């Protein structure tokens, strides 16, 4: 009888812990048509294009709070341009993400950039954990474009990004 009570207690504690943890869900968070810009004049070598994005967790689920987020990974990063020369002036791209109270994380790279393309998919990091960034009010996306030669004008590209957000219900 004593043993049964002990077993029952263990089962109850395990059940309580399971309920407290809640179930986890995964959803995709999209950043569409973000305009990343660097002000000219720009010089040969890596130049920084950036944009700020306000995090809206209601996009994932209404009422979702930052402390419910348990993990964030990047799953897709696409850069496009309407410029007639495409990306012919760019050797490579490196994408990073940061926020006021979170570390900068390198999240995607494309090296080299193929000539003649107007849309490119970057190779995304399989390890970068972005939870700390997504629990902030806004994030800064930083795209380093390694420019071939100098450029007088501004440089501007469009970015579409997909993140997989894991959260507790």
């Amino acid at each position, binding site marked *: 009888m004593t043993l049964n009570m002990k077993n029952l207690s263990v089962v109850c504690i395990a059940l309580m812990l399971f309920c407290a943890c809640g179930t986890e869900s995964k959803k995709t968070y999209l950043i569409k048509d973000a305009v990343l810009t660097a002000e000219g004049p720009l010089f040969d*070598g*890596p130049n*920084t294009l*950036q944009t700020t994005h306000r995090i809206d967790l209601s996009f994932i689920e209404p009422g979702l709070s930052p402390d419910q987020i348990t993990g964030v990974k990047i799953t897709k990063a696409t850069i496009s341009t309407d410029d007639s020369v495409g990306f012919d002036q760019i*050797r*490579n791209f*490196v994408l*990073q993400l*940061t*926020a*006021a109270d979170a*570390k*900068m994380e*390198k999240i995607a*790279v494309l*090296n080299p950039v193929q000539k003649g393309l107007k849309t490119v998919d970057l*190779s*995304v*990091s*399989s*390890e*970068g954990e972005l939870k700390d960034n997504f629990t902030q009010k806004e994030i*800064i996306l*930083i795209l*380093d474009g*390694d420019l071939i030669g100098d450029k007088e004008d501004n440089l501007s590209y469009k970015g579409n990004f997909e993140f997989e957000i894991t959260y507790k219900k």
Partner: protein
Amino acid sequence: MKTIIISCALWLVHMVGSAQADQLLGVWEPSNGKARVKIEKIGEKYYGKIVWLKEPNDPKTGQPKLDKNNPDASLRSVPLKGYRMLKDFKFSGNNQWENGTIYDPENGSTYKCIIKMTDSNTLDIRGYIGVEALGRTDVWKRLKTGK
């Protein structure tokens, strides 16, 4: 009237603090002379990226050097030229920037780091593991004046 004076005083303090913090901006050279690092401000934090390498190409391949020692295998094609080796520094007053990290591309390790400006053209860059006492300081010199 009192509110306006207080607001002006706070604005002045903010501007002076911001100017002191931005003294870090510019191009700097580590003591080994192998690279030059440009420190920029993104948001309210400071970052340093490699803008020049004494030996830009890998002697084995003849191609630009890559971050081949990065622990994240998916990022080993990132070129070293343009690499942000100093990250996330915040100005803490007294010519010091803290809470940042420094990356050593020669072994793929990241260390905690504190930057101290000893004069307007000299930085003490201290990288460490765990506690500050267990670290190494390198002296960097400014290459250009201004931002």
